[in-house]
């Protein structure tokens, strides 16, 4: 299992902030995002947009980063703090 977190606009659009997702093998963020689209619905394609930032265990990573069981994977729009 992994924990998937969504923030801000993504959290509102997909109407969920956190979910547990079956995940056994090491595979990339890209693979995870596509599996989420397949299992959760076409509206999850918003995760595939280039501008969406991904963090694994609170560290920002690229789409080719490996996701392992037990990880916390967050998807969020470009940040707007400060």
């Amino acid at each position, binding site marked *: 299992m992994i924990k998937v977190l969504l*923030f*801000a*606009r993504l959290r509102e659009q997909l109407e969920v902030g956190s979910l547990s997702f079956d995940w056994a093998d090491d595979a990339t963020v890209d693979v995870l995002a596509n599996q989420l689209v397949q299992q959760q619905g076409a509206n999850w394609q918003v995760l595939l947009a280039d501008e969406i930032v991904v963090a694994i265990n*609170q560290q920002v990573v690229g789409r080719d980063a490996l996701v392992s069981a037990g990880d916390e994977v*967050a998807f*969020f*729009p470009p*940040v*707007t*703090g400060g």
Partner: protein
Amino acid sequence: MSANESLNTSPLINVVIQESTFNLAIECDRLTAMLGDQHLNMGALASFAGNVRAVETNLENTDQDDINAYGEFRALEIEHYPAMTQLSIESIVLKANQRWPFLGCKVIHRVGLLDIADPIVLVLVASSHRKEAFAACEYIIDYLKNAAPFWKKAIFEHGEQWVNAKASDALALDKWA
């Protein structure tokens, strides 16, 4: 430890995420007090304080008729990623300290509902000389705006809109390359 050894010690770093407001003068005094004897080496204290403006222009929806229909801008709501926010800012502060060694730094970022003219963010950098304090302070706020996981939502009289990231904020990092 003698007060002259300041540049050989780790800086004092304090990052706080809070809902409540803050006062610049009080936070300057607190940072000075936290430095203890090291405050005798503090020749400079630079600050950046960001406030909520009365107009928010970078909205997700760019349709002017829709924007007019939202009515008066009332407040900002700030969401964050609690497990990541503090680590992200601390990492930025440590990078700034590698480039411009300083004595201490305090960062406050507010979350939740903020009124117009409310303070949002504070960066204080205490150092021996002004050059390090100014540079580190600007570097920290520039990176915070691009990397720390906060999101602003503009609350209007008749609606709400997420605020888009500004290209100019990303371009501001070029000067630190």
